[in-house]
């Protein structure tokens, strides 16, 4: 089991606030790694650092890319993290392209491949065979994922008009169309009903076991995290407080304390609600 | 819906533009809306009165005249559109446009459609392009600039003179000519400045003039800005004499500038109101509560010009009318008009005026 991503001494400060404090963490290839922690623990900030939206104050993020070798994620702008390093994320507050159809959302995710095939749009403008073929392939790929996530019947609907749970699935499907090496899911089960959660579990296991995609999962729904994760990392106040197999983490006294013992940090709570609202 | 819309639009446009007219149509065009609407207003009042008078005399060649009014808002694009409307309305004569930048593109349309025009636009380019249908009943910027520049060089010897313009085609052209004429007479402008028309605050310019010790400002532009500059100069304790062009005939200048307007001089054709032959018409305008200032009498004269040319040619066909206009001499309220080959007035004669107590009169 090789290490896909290794986070070393990651620190992220916003003015006086330290959101992530000297965090180190290994993400193995082809496995599901769960990240849990109380609200405002710095989980989403970790994702933002990983995917280039924030520049970490200190620390290194090394990705052992199967094709391109070692890449330093903290040095890449966000679009290159997705394009070159193939580290793709979803968002806690779903970010689809609401007026575009589901299919279009999935095609846009394959922008870089198609754009290359369209050769500065010229091949595309004249509908040259090379481009047509690339487009067909892109649609086929999208159709496959739609089928797998039971979204085919929504393909031509505007994404923004669909129910919440469906939108969550679309966002995952869209991320999959980027062909990720590492898929970072930010609370994919939030707002799902139990049946949908169960389906999600199944999907995550399929992606990991059958497709070999490594998954980094932020989740509050313990039925999801505990059931699918191979390895769980618990963070609080931006620090790692426990790590290990699901069962071990469940019984760790630090974790129990973090979840149950302290409820005086209202400031942190507030920050969280704000994040939700935006 | 779109098609019906388009179709009705076309039909309506077509129908509207092909209205058969029993009367003979003549037209005026100028800025009836927008920033310079007051000039357009003057033109309309003058032309309306003239048409009423001509029709009272029995019209032209036995037909009553009908006046078409076109609004170009001093926008070249709209000017072309107005010109096309007028062509469709089968006008036989056009007085306009007012802004040189509207007259130039619109005149090409009239030229192609064989419509003679009389304009008050002063930019030399208006007649320099060799179009046969243009007749200018006003002097040119270069002529009036020369008169103003020489006057300044003669009368204000030893004083510091600034030349300022408002960056409009008219204003800049005029100011350049004034500066040229002054320099030719051996007087270099102490300052050459430009302002943005439409602003309200010219205290920066005034301070600059004060610093440079300027006493006389030669100005190319419109009256609104002159009034503001004068007011602000007075507030800053600067005694300023202004010399400008024909646009300063507007009595708004006096209302706006207050007593300081007495320091304003400008060049203009000999005052048509002083023309004894114009006296009855002037009286008539005053009776109708219209002060025949600025372009009012010019519009009146343009219509007289058409009346006389048509009567002498006994036709309103372009060829005949054009020949009559070029060859003839016409007695109008602005004096005798006759044109050279380019269509400029043969003897435009500019005179320097000075505002005094709300009236303008020849300057000493």
């Amino acid at each position, binding site marked *: 089991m090789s290490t896909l991503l290794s986070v070393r001494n990651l620190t992220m400060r916003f003015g006086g606030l330290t959101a992530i404090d000297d965090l180190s963490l290994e993400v193995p290839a082809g496995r599901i790694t769960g990240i849990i922690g109380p609200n405002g623990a710095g989980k*989403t900030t970790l994702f*933002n650092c990983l995917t280039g*939206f924030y520049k970490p104050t200190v620390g290194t993020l090394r990705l052992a890319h199967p094709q391109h070798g070692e890449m330093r994620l903290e040095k890449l702008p966000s679009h290159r993290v997705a394009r070159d390093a193939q580290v793709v994320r979803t*968002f806690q507050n779903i970010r689809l392209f609401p007026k575009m159809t589901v299919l279009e959302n999935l095609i846009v995710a394959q922008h870089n491949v198609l754009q290359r095939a369209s050769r500065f749009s010229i091949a595309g403008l004249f509908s040259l065979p090379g481009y047509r073929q690339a487009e067909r392939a892109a649609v086929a790929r999208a159709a496959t994922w739609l089928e797998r996530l039971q979204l085919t019947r929504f393909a031509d609907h505007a994404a923004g008009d669909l129910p919440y749970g469906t939108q969550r699935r679309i966002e995952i499907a869209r991320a999959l169309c980027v062909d990720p090496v590492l898929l970072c899911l930010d609370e994919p089960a939030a707002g799902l009903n139990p049946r949908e959660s169960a389906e999600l579990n199944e999907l995550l296991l399929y992606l990991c076991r059958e497709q070999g995609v490594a998954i980094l999962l932020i989740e509050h729904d313990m039925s999801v995290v505990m059931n699918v994760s191979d390895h769980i990392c618990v963070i609080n106040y931006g620090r790692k407080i426990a790590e290990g197999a699901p069962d071990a983490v469940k019984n760790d006294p630090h974790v129990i304390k973090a979840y149950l013992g302290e409820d005086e940090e209202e400031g942190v709570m507030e920050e969280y609600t704000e*994040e939700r*609202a*935006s | 819906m779109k098609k019906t819309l388009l179709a009705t639009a076309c039909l309506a446009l077509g129908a509207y533009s092909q209205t058969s007219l029993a009367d003979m149509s003549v037209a005026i065009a100028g800025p009836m*809306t*927008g*920033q310079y*609407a*007051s000039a*357009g*207003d003057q033109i309309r009042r003058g032309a309306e009165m003239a048409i009423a008078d001509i029709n009272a005399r029995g019209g032209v060649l036995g037909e009553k005249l009908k006046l078409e009014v076109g609004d170009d808002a001093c926008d070249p694009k709209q000017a072309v559109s107005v010109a096309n409307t007028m062509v469709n309305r089968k006008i036989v004569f056009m007085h306009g446009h007012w802004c040189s930048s509207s007259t130039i593109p619109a005149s090409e349309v009239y030229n192609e459609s064989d419509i003679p025009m009389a304009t008050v636009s002063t930019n030399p380019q208006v007649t320099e392009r060799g179009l046969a249908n243009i007749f200018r009943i006003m002097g040119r910027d270069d002529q009036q600039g020369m008169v103003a520049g020489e006057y300044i060089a003669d009368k204000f010897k030893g004083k510091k003179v600034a030349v300022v313009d408002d*960056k409009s085609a008219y204003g800049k052209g005029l100011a350049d000519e004034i500066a040229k004429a002054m320099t030719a007479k051996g007087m270099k402008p102490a300052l050459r*400045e*430009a*302002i*943005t028309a*439409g*602003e*309200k*605050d010219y*205290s*920066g*310019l005034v*301070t*600059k003039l*004060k*610093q440079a*010790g300027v006493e006389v400002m030669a100005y190319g532009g419109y009256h*609104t800005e002159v*009034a*503001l500059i004068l*007011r*602000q100069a007075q*507030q*800053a*304790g600067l005694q300023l004499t202004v010399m400008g062009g024909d646009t300063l005939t507007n009595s*708004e200048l006096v*209302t*706006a*500038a*207050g007593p300081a307007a007495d320091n304003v001089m400008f060049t203009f054709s000999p005052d048509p109101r002083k023309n004894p032959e114009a006296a009855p018409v002037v009286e008539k305008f005053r009776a109708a509560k219209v002060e025949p200032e600025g372009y009012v009498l010019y519009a009146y004269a343009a219509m007289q010009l058409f009346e006389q040319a048509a009567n002498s040619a006994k036709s309103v066909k372009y060829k005949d009318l054009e020949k009559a206009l070029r060859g003839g001499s016409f007695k109008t309220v602005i004096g005798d008009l006759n044109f050279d080959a380019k269509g400029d007035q043969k003897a435009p004669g500019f005179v320097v005026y000075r505002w005094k107590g709300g009236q303008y009169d020849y300057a000493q």
Partner: protein
Amino acid sequence: MAYALQQLINGLTLGAMYGLIAIGYTMVYGIIGMINFAHGDIFMVSAFIAITAFTLLAAADVTSIPLALTFVLIVAIFFTSAYGWAVERTAYRPLRGSTRLAPLISAIGMSIFLQNAVQLTQGARVKPIPPVIEGGVVLWDAPGFTVQIGWSQLLIIVTTVVLMIAFTWMITQTPFGRQQRACEQDRTMASLLGVNVDRTISFTFMLGAALAAVAGVMVTVYYGVVDFFIGFLAGIKAFTAAVLGGIGSLPGAMLGGLLIGLIEAFWAAYLWAEYKDVATFGILCLVLMLRPSGLLGRPEVEKV
């Protein structure tokens, strides 16, 4: 030196005027996040109201300047606020909740409408009144150049500063200010908490219009000449000022206004007057490149 000082005074006066209009822009922007392109024309309407009021007073032989000013201000604020209210009610409220651009276009239409309505009802001619406040103080009698500040210039600068302080106080300290800020941040939440959002927005528009009215009266007093076209340039400049200072921030609007006034004055004084608008917009671009939210605007954190 004396010259520079005089230009400084000119720039400050002009800047204060821009700032006054910009505060109205910024308040409206703050609450509904739209560029109210008709704001400049509201200002123009108020200048016309002021002209009529001053003329009426002159006809009634009122000579006391403070009395006249107070009367004109009250009249102008009353009627102009009514215009502000009506504009919001007819052109913007029906568009609440639609795309960001719909109210913008509606505002541009409103601006064209107001301009032409005034031209039609009041005429295209410029409207002048005799100087209301004359004279000033000589600050420095340098050789060859006397620096002076007119009473009306002083009046403008003082009024603007006082109003900015008053409005900042109102927004930060009063219940209305709290409601206003609540609407600004989350309209749905505010209405759930019992804030009457419609009324708050209407009131904000009326306040913005009242500020424009004060600016309109000041313009009439200072320049003495008004026409139906003055709203356009003033509106654009004030908008620029509001953005430069950081749109949504009242002190920012003031600062932006003053900066633009000073840039214009000094650029025209020492460099090429004809390129002063290029300078203004150039500096705006530079500032925004370095600080994308303006000088005093809260930096927008990219929420992911």
